[in-house]
């Protein structure tokens, strides 16, 4: 794979509003051609970061490049190759959805591919003749989504784009993003919908309090979490508590329950088999657990109960 320069490259980005530090040394790299999940709890600074990348906010310090350009100084040129969908689309009351879609396309410079536009309107089941507030929340999102997917750009920036979409439309959205990826376009997807992230994203960055806390592929991240194990042993367990990475150990007779950091799993399994295993149930970390762990405030131990829901 030839390494093109990253579509988005952000390092040590700071931005404060008065006393609030919205971004506190954010790092983010989105490689060209990937779908990058951008995750974090509410108020973590995702939208602020996106607005800096769009040149709407000026960063206090740090560097940001988008499609090789400075997002602030070179905003207009950069935007020719970018389509943006905000999480809350507001429309003009006297303009129809179709007019807004075409307006966005033209303002981007290139106009829209009319066949793709028609196809997308069809797939999203959008009525383009309705105006402004007569659209529901989900339908307003569709207006922005159609405008974004129908335009010829290199980078799509989607900030919680599916809020208000029904599950069927959510599926249409996911197919559209997959198609964009197949065409070699880059997508930065901010989302709280984990299935969406799991389905679409090659890599994810998790931010909290304006800082990147984790970045990598989902497989990478899974290694950073804990697997829970329940085992019935032939004899009493031996020395489990001393093993590194073991948490919440609960031994009752020959029955063992524990959580283990996934990268320390091997030693635990050895220790278990040494005592003879009658039955073993291992639950790999779910995505929910992964995120909850990162979303919650820095707590040294994992949540006690099983989180699977």
């Amino acid at each position, binding site marked *: 794979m030839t390494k093109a320069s990253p579509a988005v490259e952000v390092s040590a980005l700071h931005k404060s509003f008065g006393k609030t530090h919205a971004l506190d040394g954010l790092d983010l790299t989105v490689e060209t051609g990937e779908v990058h999940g951008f995750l974090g709890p509410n108020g973590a600074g995702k939208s602020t970061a996106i607005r800096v990348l769009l040149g709407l906010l000026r960063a206090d310090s740090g560097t940001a490049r988008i499609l090789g350009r400075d997002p602030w100084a070179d*905003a207009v040129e950069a935007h020719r190759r970018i389509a943006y969908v905000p999480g809350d689309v507001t429309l003009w009351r*006297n303009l129809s959805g179709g007019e807004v*879609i075409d307006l966005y396309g033209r*303002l981007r410079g290139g106009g829209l591919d009319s066949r793709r536009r028609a196809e997308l309107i069809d797939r999203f089941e959008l009525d383009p*003749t309705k105006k402004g507030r007569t659209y529901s929340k989900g339908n307003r999102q569709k207006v922005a989504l159609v405008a974004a997917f129908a335009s010829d750009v290199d980078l799509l920036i989607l900030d919680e784009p599916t809020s208000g979409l029904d599950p069927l439309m959510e599926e249409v959205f996911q197919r559209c993003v997959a198609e964009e990826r197949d065409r070699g376009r880059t997508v930065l997807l901010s989302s709280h919908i984990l299935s969406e992230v799991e389905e679409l994203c090659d890599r994810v960055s998790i931010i909290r309090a304006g800082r990147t806390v984790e970045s990598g592929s989902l497989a990478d991240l899974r290694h950073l979490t804990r697997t829970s194990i329940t085992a019935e042993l032939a004899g009493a367990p031996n020395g489990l508590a001393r093993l590194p990475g073991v948490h919440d150990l609960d031994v009752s007779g020959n029955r063992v329950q524990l959580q283990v950091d996934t990268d320390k799993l091997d030693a635990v399994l050895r220790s278990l088999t040494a005592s003879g295993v009658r039955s073993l149930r291992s639950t790999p970390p779910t995505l929910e657990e992964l995120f909850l762990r990162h979303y919650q405030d820095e707590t040294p131990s994992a949540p006690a109960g099983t989180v699977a829901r």
Partner: protein
Amino acid sequence: MSATATPAAFAARSGGARQLAGTGTLLMFNLRRDRVMIPVWVAVTALLVLSLPGSLESVYSTPAERAEIARQLLTNSSLRATYGPVFSDSIGGLTAWRIGGYAAILAGVMSLLVVVRHTRDEEESGRQELISSAMVGRRAPLTAALLTALVANAALALLITGGLAGRGASGALALGLGVAGVGTAFATLTAIVAQFTESARLAKGLTGGLLGAAFVLRAAGDSATDDGSSALTWISPIGWLENLRPFADERWWVLGLFVAATALQGWLAYELAGRRDVGMSFVPTRPGPATGRLGTAGALAWRLQRGAVLGWSVGFFAAGVAFGGLTKGAADLVGDNAKTRQIIERMGGQSSIEDAFLATMVGMFGMVAALYVVSSVLRLHAEETSQRAEPILANAVGRLRWAGSHLVIAFGGAVLILLLSGLGLALGYGQELGPVVGASLVQVPAVWVLGGLAVLLYGLSPRLAVGAWGVAGFALLVGWIGPALDVPQAVLDLSPFGHLPKVPGGEMSWTPVLVLTGVAVGLVSAGLAGVRRRDVTA
């Protein structure tokens, strides 16, 4: 089963007292949201009225002078059209004559802003849904909005009555109640209009137009008769105030008209509101085209502002024609009274009375045009705070291009409407086309300075932007009543309009025109520099 269906249907129809549930809470909430706007509006209106007796006393110090001026005022149809007939030459009577109608207009504007703000604005923004989902009766929001307007108007009536009581208690009470009566009548009228539009902006524009029509009806009626007895005057609530005759043997029964109109319109508004869905109107939004032609930021800005530009253009031209037609009559008056002449001269300059009157009118149009330019500039503010600017700027549209396209409409539109007002004045007057149109255009730099100030405030911070209304309002007030109040020239000079040559009639001087244009350019440039530099607010 009909046995169960009947009570349910009955309950749905009547709704019972629960329809008003939550009104008290909403009223307190409204008053808290308006805790700055209503007191300021009420105080300024009251001060306007209360400052008048003193200055009238200094201008016409003896009863004989007042009797003479009252006689002259009454015989002059143009002045009757502008202010209404004089019914009493007492200080109180002259105060009511000079300012009553205008205070009533201010009360009407206040009421319309308050009512739209708490009804249609809330529905348009979607906030109403959340409110209505709570323990809030179907009629509570409208009731609370009308009560808010009632509280504001009552405060105004109290201040006027208390402040003028020394000039005659019953006259003061009549003027206070009459001004508040016009206010409440327009409050319920606004409530009706707000049922027919889905847009708060349109509701304000339409009610504002009705308010203007009420003034024109009264003016037309009074230019024809000298005792307010014309049917045209009786159609207009502002005419009722006049016919209440404060300080001149008050005709208390006229107050019944205000009560009846307020109640009838209120009832109609309730009936209408009860028959429609939240957020919807009786004039449903029609579908639009499936594909659009808009392709530039400029085209979008024009599309968003063209309705306002058209409305202002029609209004300015029509008002120009109307006032132009009054010019000839204005000349009959004033003549001997040196003090009055001095007032007119300070407002409109020296030379012939016709020219002085025209110059005054031209100046008025200039000051009102400042309201247009501020509202048009602040469209940028509305677009930004409603988050509609953000996706536009996320396209390949530079901030200057985006802001500039709205500013072209604001500043160019100011030229257009002033040109039309000049044309109207000249047409109505029937002569002096060149000088009058030229004089109207002389107002442009002063209007631009106020527009430029709005751009600067907006460019510095969107939070400051609404301050532009305060500045424009100050300039309007200084120019409107300053000359009559013997305000020091230094204060008059604070308004850019104070520096303009008094044309037609006066000496044309280019220096202030060029300097003000330069100032306007500087303000706009500084404002745009701010727009470029600062963050776009979420």
